[in-house]
């Protein structure tokens, strides 16, 4: 059971380049999230998805796009990278609250993070 897997772990981008951060989970979770963490700060929500084909914006969506064609995968696309997108990106997933026993249904699983630098 791999949990939540993110790739790449590290990446350096030039200003204006594009890239996709990959996120895959093998727990059959409907809910998935992308957060970013700037130095010395808490995480902020970029986008989230409540199932295949359903996505919505979080607090800081500008400059990003997402898609959710399968339950397992939730890629995050950066178009025209800017220095302000230098950050650590975390993908997370969970079961919808209340669909499973109380203890399991409320656990949120985070990936290992992707360190992105835009120069």
């Amino acid at each position: 059971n791999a949990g939540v897997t993110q790739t790449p772990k590290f990446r350096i981008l030039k200003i204006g380049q594009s890239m996709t951060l990959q996120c895959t989970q093998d727990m059959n979770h409907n809910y998935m999230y992308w957060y970013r963490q700037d130095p010395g700060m808490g995480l902020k929500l970029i986008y989230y998805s409540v199932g295949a084909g359903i996505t919505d914006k979080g607090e800081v969506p500008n400059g990003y796009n997402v898609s959710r064609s399968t339950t397992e995968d939730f890629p995050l696309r950066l178009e025209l990278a800017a220095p302000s997108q230098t950050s650590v990106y975390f993908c997370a997933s969970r079961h919808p609250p209340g669909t499973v026993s109380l203890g399991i249904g409320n656990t949120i699983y985070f990936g290992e993070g992707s360190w992105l630098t835009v120069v």
Partner: protein
Amino acid sequence: ELKVEQNPLFLSMQEGKNYTIYCNYSTTSDRLYWYRQDPGKSLESLFVLLSNGAVKQEGRLMASLDTKARLSTLHITAAVHDLSATYFCAVVGGLAGGTSYGKLTFGQGTILTVHP
């Protein structure tokens, strides 16, 4: 808009001492999470608090939730060096059964350093 504030932001403790980290949030919620993060690492789940009055303990850490006061505390007992890390609280806005979709709003984090 849900806002989550932690204090203190920096905490330097002596080994063996006790201290409390506070997490205040601005709107109704009955679901609060505590995480630990080591430098360069992902988040490690410590506690999930799901109702008013919930109290959970693991080793030297104990967390509680007061939904009426919109306050959670993380109490550290007899600190040891291994507890040095950054601690985050995170809140799911609204009440269970609502439409928050499990989205977390994080506090700024408390950087804890335990020294001899």
